[in-house]
């Protein structure tokens, strides 16, 4: 009975974890494709070769002339003088000419004296080049190169194969990029700022504020406020962010409202990095606050009423009650919410993607959003799956470590009890 669950979790949960690690070690992009590649001498490959093997790179780039059976067959089909092909086959078979001039000089010297037009016609038939031809196998490319008169040592073959391969290869380059690039450092700082501020201000503090204020209200009023503050969580995220966009747009609510006092209309969401952060944190904080509110409210409800009565009889002010009765008993729920929300804030980028798309510029780009932009959606169109997976892998590792810690803190072993029926 547990098999379907195990299979699904394995296929779409554990496998992706492993695969993220695997993809992180590759340079997969849209250009390399995700399945295997081919070997192709492109202009880019020639540029790469120039550094190591300048002669070869120059040679491959130019057309070469090879007297081969294929060309001879084509020549016979042209129905020129029969002597041409007979002589070429007899005395020049397999010869390679590195340029058109040399090939044509040889053809001109044929006994049957071809005209200038015929020389050109004939030489065209033997024009051979590997430039931009796709080879499905490495050997195919090497065989062609050999036919064209390039004799390569195994080491040279290796260099050529690497330079011309169009598929993805194994590499640790991604981690070097993550470690060294200043962009990544900026994104890392953004993430740290975003997670800590949202967590402290909203997911914990404001949630506590909501839970405590609703606690000091008549039950009916309290349930209205709780319902209001649950709205951000239950509203589908696209609509929720749409409403914030409307609030902050050039012609939106804040602009119109400030317009009544003579301020010019502007886009409050995207006009400056400061404002963008302000709203990004509000948008996420309002959603995050509801979870803390529910957890803290039920924890406060679990505090024995007698403690409140006793403190009131002793003349405690409301602040003292909060400080000395409520807060000390909320230690575990607060720790729980902090752990849980750190993880979800680190990983979720829905709201930022829909509101600022990481803008203005890249001011509000956080780690998970940057991974998404790198691997799945960017303006240049070359999606770097490998680099994106490496960035996601950082989050995956952080996620696993944090959830393991969280498992320890919340004493998981107490949650298991032995089955009472033995099978």
């Amino acid at each position, binding site marked *: 009975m547990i098999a379907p669950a195990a299979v699904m979790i394995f296929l779409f949960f554990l496998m992706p974890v492993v695969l993220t690690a695997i993809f992180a070690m590759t340079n997969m992009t849209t250009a390399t494709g995700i399945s295997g590649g081919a070997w192709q001498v492109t202009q880019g490959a020639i540029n790469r070769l120039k550094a190591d093997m300048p002669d070869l790179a120059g040679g491959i780039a130019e057309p070469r002339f090879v007297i081969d059976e294929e060309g001879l067959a084509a020549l016979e089909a042209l129905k020129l003088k029969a002597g041409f092909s007979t002589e070429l086959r007899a005395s020049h078979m397999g010869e390679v000419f590195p340029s058109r001039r040399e090939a044509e000089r040889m053809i001109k010297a044929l006994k049957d004296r071809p005209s200038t037009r015929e020389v050109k016609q004939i030489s065209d038939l033997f024009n051979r080049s590997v430039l931009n031809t796709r080879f499905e196998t490495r050997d195919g490319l090497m065989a062609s190169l050999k036919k064209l008169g390039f004799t390569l040592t195994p080491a040279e073959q290796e260099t050529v194969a690497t330079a011309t391969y169009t598929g993805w290869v194994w590499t640790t380059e991604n981690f070097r990029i993550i470690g060294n690039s200043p962009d990544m450092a900026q994104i890392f700082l953004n993430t740290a700022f975003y997670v800590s501020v949202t967590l402290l201000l909203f997911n914990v503090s404001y949630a506590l504020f909501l839970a405590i204020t609703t606690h000091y209200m008549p039950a009916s009023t309290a349930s209205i406020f709780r319902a209001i503050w649950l709205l951000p969580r239950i509203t589908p995220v696209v609509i929720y962010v749409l409403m914030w966009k409307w609030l902050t747009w050039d012609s939106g609510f804040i602009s119109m409202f400030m317009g009544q006092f003579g301020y010019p209309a502007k886009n409050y969401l995207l006009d400056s990095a400061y404002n963008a952060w302000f709203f990004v944190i509000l948008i996420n904080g*309002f959603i995050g606050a509801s979870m803390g509110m529910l957890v803290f409210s039920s924890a406060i409800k679990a505090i024995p009423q007698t403690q409140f009565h006793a403190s009131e009889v002793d003349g405690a002010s409301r602040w003292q009650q909060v400080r000395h009765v409520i807060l000390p008993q909320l230690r575990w729920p607060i720790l729980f919410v902090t752990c*849980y929300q750190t993880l979800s804030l680190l990983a979720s980028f829905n709201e930022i993607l829909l509101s600022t798309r990481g803008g203005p510029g890249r001011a509000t780009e956080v780690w998970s959003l940057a991974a998404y932009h790198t691997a799945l959606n960017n303006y240049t169109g070359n999606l770097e799956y490998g680099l994106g997976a490496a960035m996601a892998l950082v989050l995956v590792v952080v996620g696993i470590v944090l959830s393991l810690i969280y498992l320890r803190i919340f004493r998981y072993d107490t949650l298991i009890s032995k089955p009472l029926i033995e099978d």
Partner: protein
Amino acid sequence: MAEKPQISSNTTSANFSSLPVILLLGLFSLPLLVMYAYLFIDTISDTEAGSLIPNEFTLRHWSFLWETKAGKPNIWLVTLNTFIFASCITGVILTVSSMAGYVLSRLNVPARGFFLAGVMVLHAFPSVTLIIAIFIVLQWIGLYNSLIGVILVKAAVELPLGIWLMKGFYDTVPWEIEMAGTVDGASRFTVWRRLVLPQIKPAVMALGLFSFLTGWSEFIMPQVLAPGAKVQVLSVYLAGLIIDDNNFDFGTFKAVGVFYVVPVLILYVFFQKHLMNIYGGGTKG
């Protein structure tokens, strides 16, 4: 509900007035209230530029219901997709997690502790970080841009929560019922199907509702894994409308938004009590 007001009034009435906190919280809640109020108002009215008060009633923002926009899929197809998406996810989650939860709660399977720990780690683990790998896997096996692929992925990602909740619900069912069943010679499967499952019907319903709402609201997975016009769901459709700079019209966006959010609000209002169990308690691990 009957005894709740009494408890609260005991704590609040004595020394403190509740008016200041109500006013304070009301002030904080204003932005939310304004946004939601205008979400509904703007769909059926037009407002002059530079003004905040609507001046005429109109239904033109709702025209997307009977006219398909150029380059956009038909709204009813999209709605059907969303419904299929959310229902299938619900079905898969309920079936799979009610079985797995029972096994983890009651049967002495090998590596039970390991399974439970695994489920719990996965439950806390942010699954959205896996989306890049999932994207590549779906392209490989050819389920990219299909509803089946995204349904399986979304259901799998929600499974740990479902299994964990179901396990918790089964834990509350008294053992005596099962013991009676096994003594009478029923197999464990029959016991589960006939005796235990009916006991936790409310819980199954709550998890079902929750899964449906999660599926209905999901944005990023369909956006990445199934963005094509034929398999688009409402969230992707709406996000596509908003991103299209040529037809920027908040009235229409909001009308689509209301069309999309109303089922959620209705379900929520009717089944608030069930859902609160999950929103509050479910994440408690």
